[in-house]
């Protein structure tokens, strides 16, 4: 078997070349791990079909192509849902919101906002702006789900490494998302107020989400410390000063504390009767 395989590889016919090209439909890590074996398997299958006539060869290609379509898409989806890729997709999906918040904080309004996103009166949003707003609101939960899925998948090898997202990141992400959703719900409520007199329960949901975010913040920080304290052997604790988890956790906590401070300051100002506090 060794001799035949090696000989076959030295003179790859068109079919093997086509199959090698088709393997690029698989994600790169899958190709690196199993590409060579897939090619050997294809050669074995091709050799077995060769002695059985044209119909067997056609049947082989049909099997190969159907399998390629289903398995390559399956592997692509699995790769997409892996933690690091999920984080990137989440950031891309959150980009409109990040952009909107950043430009609001910086007080900078790009020229295209006036041109495409607002009506000539300079205030009323255009249909395009409404579509972007709806996409932004829908993208956030989608990003959250994509980020949470890798955490929810069953795996016995629950190994925490500095470059892997953990459940604590999910909690942190969720708490930040709750804060953002609450802010967005306030904005949406403000925008819709000319058309809808009272949102009622919708605004209450926003407040509840905000409260949940406040409760989740300290829990997220504590959870983020757990991987660090569990990393010792024999029950001894081992400190990892370069833990990316800790850095991300601290950054997230800072963001959350800043938002809480802003909220608390506003509430305090209103409660002590500062004029125009809201």
């Amino acid at each position, binding site marked *: 078997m060794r001799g035949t395989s090696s000989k076959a590889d030295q003179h790859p016919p068109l079919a093997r070349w086509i199959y090698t090209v088709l393997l690029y439909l698989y994600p790169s890590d899958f190709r690196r791990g199993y590409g060579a074996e897939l090619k*050997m398997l294809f050669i074995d299958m091709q050799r077995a079909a060769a002695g059985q006539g044209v119909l067997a060869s056609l049947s082989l290609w049909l099997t190969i192509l159907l399998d390629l379509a289903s398995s390559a898409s399956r592997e692509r989806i699995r790769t997409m849902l892996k933690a690091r890729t999920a984080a990137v997709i989440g950031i891309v999906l959150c980009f409109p919101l990040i952009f909107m918040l950043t430009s609001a904080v910086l007080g900078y309004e790009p020229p295209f906002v006036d041109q495409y996103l607002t009506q000539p009166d300079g205030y009323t949003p255009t249909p395009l702006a409404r579509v972007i707003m709806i996409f932004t609101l829908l993208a956030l939960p989608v990003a959250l789900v994509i980020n949470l899925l890798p955490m929810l998948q069953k795996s016995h090898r629950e190994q925490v490494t500095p470059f892997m997202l953990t459940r604590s990141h999910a909690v942190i992400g969720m708490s930040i998302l709750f804060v953002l959703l609450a802010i967005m719900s306030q904005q949406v409520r403000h925008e819709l107020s000319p058309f809808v007199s009272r949102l009622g329960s919708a605004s209450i949901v926003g407040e509840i989400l905000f409260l949940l975010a406040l409760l989740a913040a300290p829990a997220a920080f504590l959870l983020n410390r757990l991987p660090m304290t569990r990393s010792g052997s024999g029950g001894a604790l081992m400190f990892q000063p370069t833990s990316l988890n800790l850095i991300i956790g601290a950054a997230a906590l800072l963001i959350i504390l800043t938002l809480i401070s802003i909220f608390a300051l506003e509430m305090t100002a209103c409660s002590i009767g500062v004029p125009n506090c809201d």
Partner: protein
Amino acid sequence: MTESTRDPQSFLPLTQPIFNILLALADGEKHGYGIMQEVTTNSGGKRMGPGTLYGSIKRLLEEALIEESDERPDPAHDDERRRYYRLTDLGQRVAAAEAARMEELVRIAHSRRLLSGKFMGSETE
């Protein structure tokens, strides 16, 4: 939780390709093509595609139900680049649990006469 102490029931029910691969490896280690041939035989000629096979193998390795074997059954007649796979202890227990689950389903089907007349009758008579 270590792999050896994990409850096999938590893996059930297995998908058909996964169970077929575990069955194929139940009587000893095999390489990819060997597994494929065994699966084809056990499935009444229905072939498993290469991508499905190695996608399933990848997940079985990740779940520690199978492992790569360094031993070669017959090095003189084998391609040294081939990877051989074998069941782990956990893989054996999971396959046994799935087989028991299916046996129970078949028992229920028997008790409801699904396998006695129309379906089994033609084969047993």
